[in-house]
Structure formats: C-alpha cells, structure tokens
C-alpha cells in the first residue's frame, strides 16, 4: 500500500468520523427556534393612547364626515364616488345604481338611513359574472360596482350593462369587505400620518412618500382590525435598512388608529391576519399580566398589575414616602336581576339566559333574583369573563387636583345584551386622598339589575390598625363584622361639638394606626357628591383580620350572585375574630340599581344610528366607591 493510498484512507476515515459526529451532534434547532420566538415576542405593539378627537380635524376626515351628514340629511344613504375616480361609463352606472331599488335595498333600518359608500366601479371581470351576464357582456360594455354598508358590514356587488343601462345582477355578501375607494385610501393615509403614536415610533414626521401599501388588495381585504366587523386598512412605513416595517392599522369605520405594530419585513412576521384584539392581548399580557408596573406621579408611588380574576390591582402605594395601601382591587361583580312572582317560581327547572345557566334566589315581597358572578382580568390565561381592553391608563382628574389609574374591562360583544363593561379606577389626589372606584357601563340583560362590586382595600398603616365608626362618638370595631353604610351626607349626628368637628359631617368611618392616631384615613362614602352623576353607593362595609388566603392573592368568585342578604364576604367574618389593634382588611360592597328608562338611564348602554348613518354606542355609566382622606390633612 503506497503512502498516498494510506493518506487517502486516513482522509476518508477522518471525514467519516467527522460527518458522523456532525450528524449526531445536536444542532441548535431549539436555539434557532428560540431565537425566532424571541424575535416574535420582541415585536413591538403600540396601542393608541391619545384621544380620537385628534383625527376629527384632519381635513380629509372632516370633509368626509360633513359629506356623510349632508348626505343622510338629504335622504340618501350611499356616498357616491367622485367623478375623478370614474370614467364616463362608470359615471353612468353609478347614476343608475343610486336609483336602483334592489341595489339600495339594504341601506335602511326602519326609517333610519345606514351609512354606505360606493367603493369602486370598473369594467366587469369575467369571473364575477354569471352565465347569462357573460353572454350579454361579451357584446356590451358591462361594469361592476361595489358598495359597502358600514353598519351591517356587508358588500353589495352589482353588474350593470352600460350600453342598455340595465342592472344585470345584484348580490350581497355579508361580513365581507371590498377594496376601498381612493378617497378612503387617502383618508387612511392622512390618519396614519397624523397619528401621534406613528410619529413617535418613526422618530420623524412622516409624509405620504414614506407610506407603502404593498399588496394593497390583500391588505385591504384582510387587514387586521377589531372583530373584523370594521373596515380597516394597514398603511405601512418600511425601514429596509433595519428590515422592519411599522404597520399602522386604521379603522375606517371609526376613523382612528386602531393599533400599530413593528414587524419584520419577512413573510412570517407579516401581521396581515392578526387582529387588533390579538395585538392588544399580547401587549397586555406582556406588560401588565406578566409583571408589575411602577408609577410615580405627584408624590404617589404605585405598583400595579392585571390579575387573573380580580381586575386591576394596585399594591404597595405610598404618598410622599409614607405607606398608604398594601393592596386595593375589585375582586368580583355580583350581577342579579330582580323579578316579581317568586311564589310561582319553579326552581326545579334549570334556566338559561344567553347560554348562561342562572341561579335563582327567592327574595322578599314576592320578588326573586337570578344572575351570575363576573370576574375581570387578563385577556388570556385567566378565569375571567370580562376581559381587559387596552392597558391601564393614567389620566388627569377633572378638577385637575390629581390623577387616576384606570382599566377598561369588557365582554368581547359589549354593548350587546347580556354583555358587560366595567372600569376599575383608582383616583389619587394631590392632598394625599385616594378613591377606589368601580364604574359599570351596562348593558347587561335588562332592567331591574342590581350590581354589587366587591372592593377589597388593605391599608398600610402598620401591623396594628383600628377601624372606628361614628355614632355620636368614635366607636372602635372590636370584632370582625359588617354594617350597612348610612348616608352620612343626610345623617343627623349627635356627640360633642369637638367630636362633630372631627366627624366633619361626612366621615362615618376612620381607620387609624394604633401607634399613631394621626396616621390614618377618614372614609367618605359616595352619596353623589363627587360630581360624577352617581346615585350613591348604598354600600355595606366589612372589616376582617388580614389573612393571606382571604384575597391577598387572586380570589376566585366570592359567594352568591343573587342572595341580596349576603355579599360573599360573610364567610370571612363568621368567626368574629378580634380586629382591635390588628392588621385590618376593609371590604366595601356598593349596591347599584340600573335604570333603562329613557332620560333616566343609569348603568346602561345602547347602540343608536347617528346623523352620519353610522352606529354609535351611547353609555350611561354608574360610578361608585368611597374616598379616603388623610386625617392629618383635616387637622
């Protein structure tokens, strides 16, 4: 065997060993995969923070809305295409169709005209024609016209023989959206250019030349948007150097930026089939459900997070360095409906409303109650049915004397019947006061509803606290119990002048540190004095000795929805443990009656057709919650 052959065998052997090793050596698929998922998670989602009024004054939007209102006022429901979007035959087709009964058949709801836009009129495409029309259109000039009904989310397509001026066919496609008109394209571009979020993300003021609407047709048809019943498009700002693009999702039904997203330019990260809800959910999960967020403002330091079933929770709150609260949240909304006729009530047969099995409880005066418990929380991975929309928001208070941290929770189908919308709000005042607020925005299953938000408030006044109620004098709560909160605003109170001064005519309770009597808070129940059109709390106050298992962590549904004699917290006071000089937890449970009477609506929402022919949601919120005022401030 020659030397060369030996070398070649050695090379072959080394090669085989090397390749065998390579074959079995675990490649980094997981790493690769992880990198990808990491990239996906890192995609930035931007939710609108600014008021939608920003868009109303854009000239393109303003003139469009003015045209809509004028059109509806003049008794027409279809906004025609302007002549510069049409050739001569298309103009003829539009004129014909705007008088055609069949084409206009879906433009009214009773007497109300519904907003429709003619989207495009162009020579008919063979594939859209039936056999009969194909025969005609081989000889004649046929045009196809598409209009979109913004209220019913329906596209109507008509085929017109422009030679004989006959409408050959009219077809309707519900839940389908057509390509949009040039006018709406310009409006979408204008909204994208005006959106403060877009400008901030891009880092410069964009102009029209920065917008690309690649694959316009596809993007138009399946653009990402809330619940797909809105007409949405996604103008895109591409940054080819960084291989990423900012997608501005524009809702043309509501004329606003719905969401924006930085995504890679690669096909796999194109967000074309990701809905606004998905974008929101991912953003909310990542930023508010997976971690605490710290807010420092006006001397307040607040940590907050979204929970699995207890709504928005604030924790470890201090004011000017002094601890105020350990935790505050709304753990549940008990929803019950009151009806007459309990004597004839058949409790053996199960009843359901909109697919929910409901609980029945006999009440007094031949009344009975039925309903359920609604938990609020994270939009994914939670035990909630009323889910967080957008993230928590920080807004100034109306009087400018503080700020609020607020979170919107909705059933996805609100404001449809038997769907709910709640707001968890915490108001922080510049003087160190705070208020835990629950807002109900309807709509529920009907009138005669009773809503009871269960608020859990754990003060941070040290390990030894005392709760007092005023009864002509300050009386300490010795043991765990509850009492109905009297309307202190109208109450005649006794006691010495000094005590009355301390009571100040409006604070029936105070909670103070056992070690320092000036370290504490008066409790001011709401009886409509806070300027939010509230009809009062009509609440029950519970005080319990702190136990970790009693709501310090996520608390699942608490008690019966419908037994008005109990609010659910009773289970924690059954033992009647001593709470004197102990770590106390306050439970405040307002009781609200909704009202659907016209002109008196309260805890109610309705959908109406406006003067622009579009659907508008009207909300009559009801707001409850007590205010806590620092004792030091009042002295």
């Amino acid at each position, binding site marked *: 065997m020659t030397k060369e052959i030996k070398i070649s065998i050695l090379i072959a052997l080394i*090669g085989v060993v090397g390749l065998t090793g390579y074959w079995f050596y675990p*490649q980094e698929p997981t790493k690769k995969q992880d990198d990808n998922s990491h990239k996906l998670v890192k995609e930035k989602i931007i939710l609108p923070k600014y008021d939608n009024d920003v868009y109303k004054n854009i000239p393109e939007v303003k003139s469009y809305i003015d045209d809509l209102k004028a059109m509806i006022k003049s008794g027409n429901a279809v906004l025609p295409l302007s002549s510069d979007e049409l050739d001569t035959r298309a103009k003829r087709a539009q004129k014909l169709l705007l008088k055609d009964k069949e084409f206009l058949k879906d433009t009214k709801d009773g007497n109300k005209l519904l907003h429709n836009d003619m989207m495009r009129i162009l020579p008919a495409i063979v594939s859209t024609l039936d056999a009969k029309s194909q025969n005609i259109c081989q000889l004649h000039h046929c045009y196809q016209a598409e209009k979109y009904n913004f209220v019913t989310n329906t596209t109507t397509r008509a085929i017109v023989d422009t030679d004989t001026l006959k409408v050959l066919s009219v077809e309707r496609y519900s839940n389908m959206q057509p390509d949009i008109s040039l006018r709406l394209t310009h409006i979408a571009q204008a909204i994208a250019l005006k959106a403060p979020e877009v400008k901030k993300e891009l880092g410069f003021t964009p102009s029209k030349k920065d917008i690309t609407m690649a694959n316009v047709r596809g993007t138009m048809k399946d653009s990402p948007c809330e619940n797909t019943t809105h007409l949405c498009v996604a103008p895109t700002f591409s940054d080819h150097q960084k291989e990423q693009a900012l997608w501005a999702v524009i809702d043309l039904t509501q004329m606003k930026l719905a969401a924006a997203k930085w995504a890679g330019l690669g096909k796999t990260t194109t967000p074309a089939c990701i809905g606004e809800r998905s974008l929101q959910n991912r953003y909310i999960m990542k930023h508010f459900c997976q971690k605490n967020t710290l807010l420092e403002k006006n001397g307040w330091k607040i940590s907050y997070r979204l929970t699995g*079933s207890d709504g928005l929770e604030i924790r470890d709150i201090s004011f000017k360095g002094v601890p105020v609260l350990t935790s505050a949240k709304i753990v549940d909304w008990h929803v019950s409906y009151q009806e007459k006729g309990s004597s004839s009530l058949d409790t053996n047969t199960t009843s359901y409303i909109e697919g929910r099995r409901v609980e029945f409880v006999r009440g007094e005066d031949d009344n009975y109650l039925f309903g359920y418990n609604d938990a609020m929380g*994270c939009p994914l991975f939670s*035990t909630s049915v009323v889910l967080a929309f957008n993230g928590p928001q920080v807004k100034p208070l109306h009087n400018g004397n503080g700020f609020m941290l607020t979170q919107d929770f909705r059933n996805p189908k609100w404001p449809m019947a038997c769907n709910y919308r709640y707001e968890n709000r915490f108001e922080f005042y510049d003087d160190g006061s705070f208020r835990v607020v629950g807002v109900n925005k309807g709509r529920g299953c009907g009138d005669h509803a009773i809503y009871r938000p269960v608020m859990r408030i754990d003060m941070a006044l040290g390990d030894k606290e005392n709760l007092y109620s005023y009864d002509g004098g300050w009386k300490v709560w010795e043991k765990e119990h509850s009492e109905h909160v009297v309307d202190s605003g109208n109450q005649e109170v006794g006691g010495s002048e000094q005590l009355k001064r301390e009571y100040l005519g409006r604070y029936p309770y105070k909670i103070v540190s056992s070690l320092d009597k000036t370290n504490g808070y008066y409790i001011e129940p709401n009886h409509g004095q806070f300027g939010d059109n509230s009809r009062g709390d009509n609440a029950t106050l519970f005080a319990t000795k702190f136990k970790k298992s009693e709501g310090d962590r*996520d608390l699942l549904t608490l008690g019966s929805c419908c037994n008005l004699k109990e609010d659910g917290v009773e289970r924690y006071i059954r033992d009647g443990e001593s709470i004197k000089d102990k770590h106390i937890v306050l439970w405040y449970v307002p009781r609200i009656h909704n009202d659907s009477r016209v002109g008196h609506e309260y805890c109610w929402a309705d959908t109406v057709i406006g003067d622009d022919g579009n659907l508008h949601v009207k909300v009559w919120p009801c707001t409850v919650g007590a205010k806590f005022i620092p004792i030091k401030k009042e002295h």
Partner: protein
Amino acid sequence: MRRYLPIIISILVMFMAGYIVISKKNSIDKTHIKSIYNIGTFKKQHSCIKLPNFLKRLKIPQPVIIDLSQKRYKGIALYFGKNFRNVMHPKQWEQYGYFSTYSLDSLGNIYLVPMPFISIYPTTFNLQKNIYKIDSNTGKLSIFMHFDDIVPSATNPYGFTSIVYDCDDNTLWCSAIDESDYQHQKGVIYHIDIKTKRVLQHIDDIDVLSLAIVKSSKGKYLLAGMARDNSLYAYAIKDKKAQKAKKLLELPSSQEHIRKIKVEAKNRLDIQAIPFSYTLITQTAQKDRVHYSITWIEKINKWRINR
C-alpha cells in the same frame, strides 16, 4: 500527478458526502411545529362505536342528539323523537358540572371531558381533573379516571379538553392543557387503555383542543387541533405509539382554534373552529363557530380550505 489521485478522490468524496450530510440534516424538521406534512389520501371509515344500550332498554328511538351546549341543561342531555322535542336528562348527569366533548366506545359507553363555565366555584378545578363515563347499560354517570397531576388554576382554569376513542385497540386519546401559561406550552396528550386504565403514552408540551383519528393510504394518524394557534397537526401512529407531530395546515385567521375534526368524505375534513384564549370566555355557540371544509388535493399535494 497520478500518485495523488487517490488523495484527490478521497477529498472530493468527503466533500460530496459532507454536502449531502449537511443539507440532509438541515432539511430535517427539528421541531414538531414546522413542516407541512402529507398524510396521504383518506376516506370516511366505518366506525366501531355504537350508541348506549340504555337507549334500547328505555325504548328511546334513534336518532338521538347528544347535547353538551350547556344552554338548556347542565352536564349532558339527549334529545330524541319527532323534531328532537323529547329530552333525557336525569339529575345525576348534572353531578360533575359542565362537559365540553365526548366519545363513544364499541360497547356504547360515553366518555366525557369537563370544562369550566362562566363562574368558578370551589369544586370547579377538581372537576377538571377527571375523565367521566356514562355506562352503556345503566346510564349512570361516574368518574372514569382521576388525574392528580392535572392542576387547573386561576391563570388557566382548564384541565382535560378533548377525547377520542380508538377502535383498533380499545383505547382513548385525551388531551389536557392545565399546566400551560402565556409563555409555556405544557399540555399533554394521554393514550389510555380502557380495560386497565393504564396510561400507555404521554406526549408532552403540546396544547390540544380537539382530537380525531384518521386512516389514510400512508397509515393511521391522530389529528390534533391546537389550543394555542390556528393549526392542525398529525401524529403518525406506529405500533400503537404516536410519533412526532407534523403540521398539516393553518386556518386563515390566527384567532380560529380547531374545536372539532371530522372526516366527511374522501380526502375531506369537516372542521369547526372557535375563539379560545384560556379564559372563561369560550365561545361555543353555533354563531361563534366557523365551519371549514378542508380538502386534500392529491395532484398538487395541497389542502384547499373553504369556509
């Protein structure tokens, strides 16, 4: 020069072998969620399952509708008779809360998996840990198997989510998704021998919302609709064991999760999808369901998805 020919040939051969090995290795699917997979042609099979014996005993005429919608009856109810106006719903069938789906076996037993519904009660999480059975002869509902390692929680109230009976070996394939959270997919598919109640196989780290068995020209497959996204996977079953999952297709919208899979005709699947977010908002009403007819086009090796 001829002297060095063996060395040159050896180097060339090694280069070629290296190229083949590297490209082959790179082409192999590294995760169970990447490749688009051809399971061959398939058709509707005659199933071994039968309706419960108690129907005959109670003289309940066929057909019957098994209702788990929870709209009118908690648990399970059977509709029968003219226009399905008659209902069979013993109170005992409400004992274990709400059910999401079922499978019949060759003896007529009904196996059911639970679901949490609207409100959480003290018993809700425990109920998710069981597979339930309605006995074919007695009609009595009982716990068929209890799993201590299934742990629903406030951040994911679900336990078992789907079940399908395997006629070939009298087993059940079931899935649970309890341990999954926003970042981690930790669902499990269990293969359970009905006779011994023994778990024959665990498939970890996959969240499945629906299961079905299909037999094709290439063999037997367990089809799985995902809870996390809009895709459908197939596990080849060889020697009664499920192999690695391969992706078959994705539905058009990312918010559609496959809840029901049925072989409807030759090369055609009937699929129902729902929104699913691991919360108590599970939109199960007919109006929330999206129906797809999905056809395997042999000639071009592609799925055609029709809504």
